[in-house]
């Protein structure tokens, strides 16, 4: 978890990579069309005042995305002050600006430039907001208690079958996983530790940690299949997000 930035630190960082203030000089200012990716690239690749103005417009775009993410998550951030949340939005926009400018050469034009840029601001904001509540907390790494389930009763036979499958998964977690796989899967998938928080504690990336989870899931599935457990469609994904 990074500490909230001071105004001076934000100014210092943004000055390093881009001018923090957008020029209001009418002769320089030219609003960039969100749909015109080529115009964004040309302006950001230009020199002098034209580039400065484009960078300032990009920062404003990223700040809008960061504030959008903060607003979406606001209901779950009851103990945050508005000032602290706006600090996070500004810090995220600053960090995203640095990332976008550094990766500008990788933009391939397969989406609008603005959509491409938005994802950097949303990533920076969501990671900061996920990490903050876990700052200084010990991570729950053991399955001390499996969650109470909210299943509707179907039939005694179906309920027994489902209990048997869950018991088999518990056994597979104990028997088929390495200690590291077990710790990561239990923390993230069972105990709800955000993957970014776990990755930060372990000093690795989200992608590296997800690879561990992926391998653990494959090991569980192999053991369940070897034990003759068939997964029905509802438990097998495919309906969870749509």
């Amino acid at each position, binding site marked *: 978890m990074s500490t909230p930035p001071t105004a001076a630190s934000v100014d210092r960082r943004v000055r390093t990579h881009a001018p923090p203030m957008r020029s209001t000089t009418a002769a320089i200012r030219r609003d960039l069309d969100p749909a015109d990716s080529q115009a964004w690239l040309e302006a950001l690749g230009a020199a002098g005042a034209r580039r400065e103005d484009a960078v300032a417009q990009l920062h404003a775009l990223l700040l809008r995305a960061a504030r959008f993410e903060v607003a979406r998550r606001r209901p779950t951030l009851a103990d945050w002050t508005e000032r602290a949340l706006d600090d996070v939005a500004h810090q995220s926009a600053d960090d995203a600006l640095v990332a976008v400018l550094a990766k500008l050469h990788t933009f391939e034009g397969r989406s609008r430039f603005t959509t491409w840029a938005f994802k950097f601001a949303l990533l920076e904001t*969501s990671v900061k907001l996920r990490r903050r509540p876990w700052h200084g907390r010990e991570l729950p790494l053991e399955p001390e208690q499996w969650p109470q389930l909210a299943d509707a009763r179907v039939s005694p036979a179906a309920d027994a079958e*489902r209990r048997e499958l869950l018991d088999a998964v518990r056994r597979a977690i104990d028997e088929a996983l390495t200690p590291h796989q077990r710790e990561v899967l239990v923390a993230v998938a069972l105990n709800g530790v955000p993957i970014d928080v776990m990755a930060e504690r372990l000093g690795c990336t989200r992608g590296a940690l997800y690879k561990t989870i992926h391998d653990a899931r494959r090991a569980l599935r192999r053991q369940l299949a070897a034990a003759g457990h068939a997964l029905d469609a509802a438990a097998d994904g495919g309906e969870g997000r749509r």
Partner: protein
Amino acid sequence: MSGERPTSDALLRRLLGPAGPELTCEQCFEQIDRYVEAEVEHGPARADALIPGMHAHLEGCAACAEEHDSLRALVRRERSG
């Protein structure tokens, strides 16, 4: 997770993840802008056909899924406004 009780199906999906091939988190980040624009402009089936493995990854990775949902909502708002 939230304090709400999961169903056994939801718990099994969290533990076992998607069955099919999926993108990595890095591949997901590289492609998510293109995927979202395809979703918004042409619908989810076209987006899934354009980038195989994205939907499965979004089912398996809660963090990438949250960021996908945010980007899609933001793009929709920007296009409508």
